[in-house]
């Protein structure tokens, strides 16, 4: 199935990708951000906060965006 995946790592990503049926948010994160820590990202599905065990559906919009952007 196809989902829209948004992420700023690497060259940046905002495109439709294929994921297997039954893929969870946690599995997608591990696949796409293998060296990342979940605490460094706000993970949303369809613009709503998502749980790690949420199963993705065809057409979902998944974003991993940075957290704790702070300056001083």
């Amino acid at each position, binding site marked *: 199935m196809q989902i829209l995946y*948004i*992420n*700023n*790592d*690497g*060259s*940046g*990503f*905002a495109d439709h990708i294929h994921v297997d049926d039954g893929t969870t948010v946690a599995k997608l994160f591990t696949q796409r951000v293998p*060296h*990342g820590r979940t605490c*460094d990202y*706000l993970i*949303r599905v369809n*613009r709503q906060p998502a749980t790690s065990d949420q199963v993705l559906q065809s057409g979902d*919009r998944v*974003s991993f*965006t*940075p*957290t*704790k*952007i*702070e*300056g*001083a």
Partner: protein
Amino acid sequence: MLFLRDLGETEVGGFGISAADDLLLIEDFVLVRQHCSVITVAFEDESVAEFFDRQIDRGLRPEQFGRIWIHTHPGESAQPSSVDEETFSRVFGRSDWAVMAIVACGGDTFARLQFPAGPGGSLSLPFAVDYRQPFTGSDHEAWTNEYLAAVQPEPDLIFSESSCLSMLSHAGDSSRTYSPLELAAWPEW
């Protein structure tokens, strides 16, 4: 950028929007919701996510809107703090490239490009206004509204004097400093 820097009494930050064919040419500066003091700025995570979604919906690529992090500093120095460096490394260190840009109230600027390719590296960039670019004009009302919607001053940390603007008070010989928002609220006399 300068208007937003000087509008309130706190630091302010946002993302630069790059030209599609020249990623180091910043065509716009966009605020996200943030909590600010005179010496700190912290973006709301959900507002950052919303910002990303909005820019994607506009048809922009992440490299056009998520790579140039800009914020202001009080006083004269635009040199990054340890907090700035930690954020730049942690948040932007996995991107193919990113820029941390700082504009100090005194006019000093700082910009550094970092890239992780190969052994990784960074270089300082000149940071200046390109007056050759077309400009649709100032819109102080829209900029002020954007500022008021995004910037949440931290009350406990607001100093009584702005580090950016200074003018003599009309009340005696004190030299209290007023922000543009305060000035706008002054009655006519």
